[in-house]
């Protein structure tokens, strides 16, 4: 057990970091939506899948390359999200939160079922963009260029999102709107508009992750559903609604999963849930959550 193979270990760590990047992007979107809307958005996985499919359609049908897809897919999926919020979620916003939870579960299943019906569940290939092929030979491992790109891009997007929310005036509106939306309205701020835009942004993050996932995981209708449960566990670990918590817990859990794959592979798919149970027992508000 202590005979550590550096090559294999760093390989698993890298995979962990990449998974962690996807976790961070997805849980960040969930945390933003939960923080402001108090909605547990079960469509996040479907939106991730939609992002990947937009990239695939783009390349296959209209010659939209990977780089364009990175912009177009989040915008398109963000618009879909805003429509969902405006016309499905807003009418039930004052009901028990279970209603919105159930609605997003149903919607996720409809979207996923529709794509499974059209494309089956085996997955479609998406070509790696030329510029990101190849890799670097480091002394202890081989680092594929695309994987490095995923980690860097995810970190940049996560950090930029965190910065906007914590350091700008728009972010102050979001934070204050989370605390006391009614008073924000009384100050003359159009809270319903901010809520719709925030939902759109949250799901756009998922779509961005979906495009980045397309070249490494195959594009399939179930790609989001498989990921979503893990991502929920990560949001709980980070602390419901905590922005920094979602990002850091995402990366951390990816790495822990990678380490587990090296030391005790049998536990690698359950270790995150184990951590979640421990966190809930020791710090119920999550690692970075505010105690109620």
């Amino acid at each position, binding site marked *: 057990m202590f005979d550590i193979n550096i090559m294999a270990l760093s390989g698993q760590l890298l995979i962990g970091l990449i998974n962690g990047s996807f976790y961070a992007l997805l849980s960040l979107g969930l945390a933003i939506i939960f923080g402001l809307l108090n909605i547990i958005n079960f469509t996040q996985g479907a939106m991730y899948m939609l992002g990947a499919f937009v990239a695939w359609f783009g390349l296959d049908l209209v010659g939209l390359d990977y780089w364009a897809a990175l912009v177009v897919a989040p915008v398109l999926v963000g618009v879909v999200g805003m429509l969902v919020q405006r016309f499905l979620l807003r009418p039930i916003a004052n009901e028990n939160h279970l209603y919105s939870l159930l609605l997003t579960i149903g919607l996720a299943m409809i979207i996923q079922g529709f794509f499974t019906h059209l494309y089956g569940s085996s997955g479609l290939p998406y070509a790696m963009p030329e510029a990101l092929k190849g890799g670097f030979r480091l002394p202890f491992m081989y680092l594929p260029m695309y994987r490095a790109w995923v980690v860097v891009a995810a970190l940049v997007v996560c950090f930029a999102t965190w910065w906007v929310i914590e350091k700008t005036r728009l972010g102050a509106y979001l934070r*204050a709107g989370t605390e006391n939306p009614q008073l924000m309205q009384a100050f003359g701020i159009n809270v319903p508009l901010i809520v719709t835009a925030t939902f759109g942004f949250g799901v756009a993050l998922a779509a961005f992750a979906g495009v980045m996932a397309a070249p490494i995981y195959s594009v399939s209708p179930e790609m989001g559903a498989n990921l979503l449960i893990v991502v929920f566990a990560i949001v709980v670990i980070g602390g419901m609604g905590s922005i920094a918590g979602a990002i850091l817990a995402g990366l951390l859990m990816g790495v822990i999963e990678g380490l587990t794959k090296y030391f005790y592979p049998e536990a690698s798919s359950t270790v995150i849930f184990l951590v979640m149970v421990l966190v809930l027992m020791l710090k119920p508000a999550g690692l970075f959550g505010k105690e109620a």
Partner: protein
Amino acid sequence: MNKPVTLPLSQPTAAPKPHREKVRISDLHAFYGESHILHGIDLRVMQGELVTLLGRNGSGRSTTLRAIMKMVGRRSGSIVINGTETLDLPAHRIAHLGLGYCPEERGIFSSLNVEENLRLPPAVRSDGMTVEQIYEMFPNLYERRFSQGTRLSGGEQQMLALARILRTGANILLLDEITEGLAPVIVKRLAEVLVDLKRRGLTILLVEQNFRFAAPIADRHYVMEHGHIVEEVAAHELEAKTGLLKTYLGV
């Protein structure tokens, strides 16, 4: 039973000066869910006036302010602000008629620091105080500008809640129990601030429990009971009606 004493509101105004009358509320009913809180309120506040709503807890004074800001359930009747009927406006449009609302619980945001709290509400008119002027008026806020909003003392939070709406340029202030729980020296400071604001021409509707704070600075008082306005007292009638007020306020 006392009949509500109100000004004759239906009387047509001779000169077209709609903006002299900053707030005009007619036959306002308000509900929280099924409970009927306000039962036909009529009141008005003229430009530059400082008017108080007096009454016991639960008489509907805070609800009157919240109803103006559309922070209650159903409302009926009429609320005219600066000449504009607001009953059917979306909540976020109302402040832009020049209203600044300071809630009873102060509404300082804990996720924002002092300066972020101060800069949070968007300007509703162009001639609000600058942040520099506000820091001059409330030096404590300047010293603590990077502290978390809710870490301030009660008095400082109250100053912040007030300063926040002064920055927006609002010229009609709705202030709910701003002296509640504050030390006498801070209450005195608040009275000076209100007198200063009044001198600048701002219109103030003040919900107040502390009659000794309100009496010397107000032009008129409305007394509320059970969701009705039961008495209107002008400043010069105060002495004559002291006994009556004491019965209503239970002091």
